[in-house]
């Protein structure tokens, strides 16, 4: 598969990105309930890895929201926090759009890269769910937080949750995309100085599928 060289590559990328966002968004909407359940189950297991006895539970409230529950608290105040699980992973839409939009890439390579990027994003999402709960435990439960978490832990969980929840979550798709496709972009923007109508070999480092 020959890659379009030069500025046309970037314009095709922009066009493809805008076109791919709709189907990727629809697919993300369809899998969101299942992915939310997966994140809550796995996030709960991750929380229980670092606590003894097991007192944390992530309880699904509805299609989008969940509670963080402490089973060692009195039932009336055991639901210590509510958060929108869907907000944890909406960056998957941009990630899918960016990875599917790259022009002149064999489908096999495109799907391999997308698969790896989604896998990294799933680990990131799990970490974010973990930090959501630990942030509440360390900083939001008043005297109980101060008694059970030291100043370093409170700051670490606070800063970690802040960085993961906004800046890192929002920039992750683009950072991953640059990691996988920067060579293709640079190959298109800075063609080798051989002249003529040669196509940059950097745009297709692997043979077509």
């Amino acid at each position: 598969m020959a890659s379009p060289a030069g500025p046309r590559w970037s314009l095709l990328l922009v066009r493809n990105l805008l076109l791919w966002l709709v189907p990727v968004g629809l697919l993300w909407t369809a899998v969101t309930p299942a992915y939310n359940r997966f994140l809550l189950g796995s996030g709960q297991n991750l929380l229980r890895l670092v606590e003894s006895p097991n007192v944390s539970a992530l309880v699904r409230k509805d299609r989008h929201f969940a509670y963080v529950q402490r089973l060692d608290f009195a039932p009336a105040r055991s639901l210590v926090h509510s958060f929108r699980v869907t907000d944890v992973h909406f960056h998957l839409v941009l990630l899918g759009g960016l990875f599917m939009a790259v022009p002149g890439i064999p489908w096999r390579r495109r799907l391999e890269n997308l698969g790896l990027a989604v896998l990294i994003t799933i680990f990131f999402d799990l970490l974010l769910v973990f930090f959501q709960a630990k942030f509440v435990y360390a900083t939001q439960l008043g005297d109980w937080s101060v008694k059970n978490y030291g100043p370093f832990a409170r700051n670490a969980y606070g800063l970690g949750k802040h960085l993961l929840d906004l800046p890192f979550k929002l920039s992750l798709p683009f950072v991953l995309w640059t990691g996988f496709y920067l060579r293709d972009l640079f190959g298109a923007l800075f063609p080798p100085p051989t002249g003529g109508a040669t196509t940059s070999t950097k745009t297709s480092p692997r043979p077509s599928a």
Partner: protein
Amino acid sequence: MAAKKASPPSPPAETPETGSLWQRNRREITFLVLFIALLAGGFTLISLNWVNDHVIEPFTAGIAQVSGVVLDLIGQDVTMEGTMIRNKRFAVNIKNGCNGVEAMLIFLAAVLAFPASWKSRVAGLGLGILAIQLVNLVRVVALFLTGVYFPRVFDASHTVIWQTIVILAGVLLWILWANRFAAPRQTAT
């Protein structure tokens, strides 16, 4: 038959295509390292309380003021108080994540890390940041109107749709900037 003495193979020449990983990808690796360092530095900087209180909060209040003026112009009769915009039917508090700062930082890090002239970078940053803030202004106004007229879809619109659009704007602007202004023109031979 006389045996021909085999000469030891000479090492391949270190050309850009056959050199080390660093030699083959110096431009890409430099971009990635700079981009991630600038991104992490920028995000850490805006996490500091002093920066948040003295830079981000006043900037966000400015966004609220401008958005309030636009909402007034379209007949929403709003009042502003710090980062809060309200009328009789709805109120929003503009917080971090809704002020376009993250998209601006992603764009800024990508522009500064890209191999381009300083003139291109400064022009790109000026126009790009202005464009991102215009998109963000549309977001705040649209979200307020969504809250007034379609409150049921406010949550999804607030995060999923508009945050994606603002980050997408930053990414698209960078690609277009790199393509149109920063990269050297391909000369036909």
